[in-house]
């Protein structure tokens, strides 16, 4: 492998990282919103969300990415590849994150909410000041786990032509006829990305422990 191959690999890694990061950022927030809506138990919307979570958890990312990318023109949407890829990853991860947030809500101690109510906090203030900080800490391991699953699933977007870290290995081996080195390097880069994520989680947990919660 020469310098341009390394360059391509790093560019592929960057594509994987930014697309995953955008999907993670949207997915975590959207998961929280869905969990909140499901808490409200609005009749029809609740059933729809249950259906969405169930279907999204069962749909393979490759299938979802192809579905979104190929049928978007049919539905009158003009999506470019990156947007379609981000949409697929986000739809998938949101369903998992919603479940993680919901279980954090369910396990939240009642005494604390009652105490907050007794001291005259509005529901919003209770949520913002009391529940959310603690829920972030309790659901962090689950969320990070889901993030690493998303990064491991991100090669699925290669199927709609995004040149991510996995796809780039094909391009390099098409030139060099040596597929093994770029695949091994790509594997090492994925390990590094996921290793970083786990390390960040450990850092965050240490900070959270210092807050003594």
């Amino acid at each position, binding site marked *: 492998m020469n310098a341009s191959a390394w360059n391509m690999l790093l560019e592929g890694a960057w594509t994987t990282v930014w697309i995953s990061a955008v999907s993670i950022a949207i997915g975590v927030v959207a998961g929280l919103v869905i969990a909140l809506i499901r808490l409200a138990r609005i009749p029809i919307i609740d059933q729809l969300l249950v259906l969405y979570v169930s279907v999204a958890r069962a749909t393979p990312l490759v299938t979802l990415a192809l579905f979104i990318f190929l049928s978007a023109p049919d539905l009158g949407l003009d999506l470019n590849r990156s947007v379609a890829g981000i949409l697929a990853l986000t739809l998938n991860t949101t369903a998992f994150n919603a479940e993680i947030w919901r279980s954090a809500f369910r396990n939240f101690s009642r005494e604390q909410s009652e105490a907050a109510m007794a001291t005259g906090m509005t529901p919003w203030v209770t949520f913002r000041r009391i529940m959310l900080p603690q829920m972030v800490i309790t659901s962090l391991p689950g969320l990070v786990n889901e993030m690493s699953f998303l990064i491991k699933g991100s090669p699925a977007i290669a199927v709609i032509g995004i040149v991510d870290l996995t796809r780039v290995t094909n391009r390099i081996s098409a030139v060099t006829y040596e597929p093994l080195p770029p695949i091994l390097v790509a*594997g090492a880069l994925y390990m590094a990305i996921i290793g970083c994520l786990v390390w960040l989680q450990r850092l965050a947990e240490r900070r959270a422990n210092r807050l003594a919660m």
Partner: protein
Amino acid sequence: MSNWEILWDERAQFWSGFLSTLEIFGLSIVGAFVIGCGLLYLLEGSRKRLTMPLRIFIDGMRMLPFLILAYLLYYGLPSVGIRLDAWGAGVGALAVYHGCYFAEIFRGNRLTFPPGQIEAAQAHGFTKGKLFFRLLLPQIIMQTRPLLGNQLIYALKDTAFLVIITVGELTAAANSLSSTYFIPTEAFIVVIGFYWAISVTMEIIIKQCGRFSAKRGFDNV
């Protein structure tokens, strides 16, 4: 003719894709299960030298995307002289990859076992193999079944990656139909329905296993 009628006429293609996905999934999870149990047995063994490399192997697998492993087997192995077809490489990659996840799930559960139980079995003269197959494995499998069920759904979803290395399964069927007739929306809705049906069936089976294990008293250890 409406789009749905076209799809109905092409139902044979969906069906063969569905069967092929089921075949790949079935074979690879059986393989993964055997590999997971084998790794657990090796980790359980007294040889400490083996534990470290095995754990590194398992953790390494868990940090790798599945597609990279499939690429490694399909595109990478021919450079060292081993040639697998797409199907074999796909099933092999699924089995090894998810075998490592199974091993990790088993290992995590094994750590929570009370040591007294094992000591009691040893005192009663259980050999190592019997201790493993009669005592450890059934309990571990029954106690980890929700996690195993999750992992099975991940394995099912990973079979779709094999379309990238040209295995003809369910997603490939939808892809070829949608490009033949230009009806992607309907074709993929049908395929997503298939995947959903498989995973809902699996969830029901896992729940039934829960009843069985409650009856046999696996849960109140």
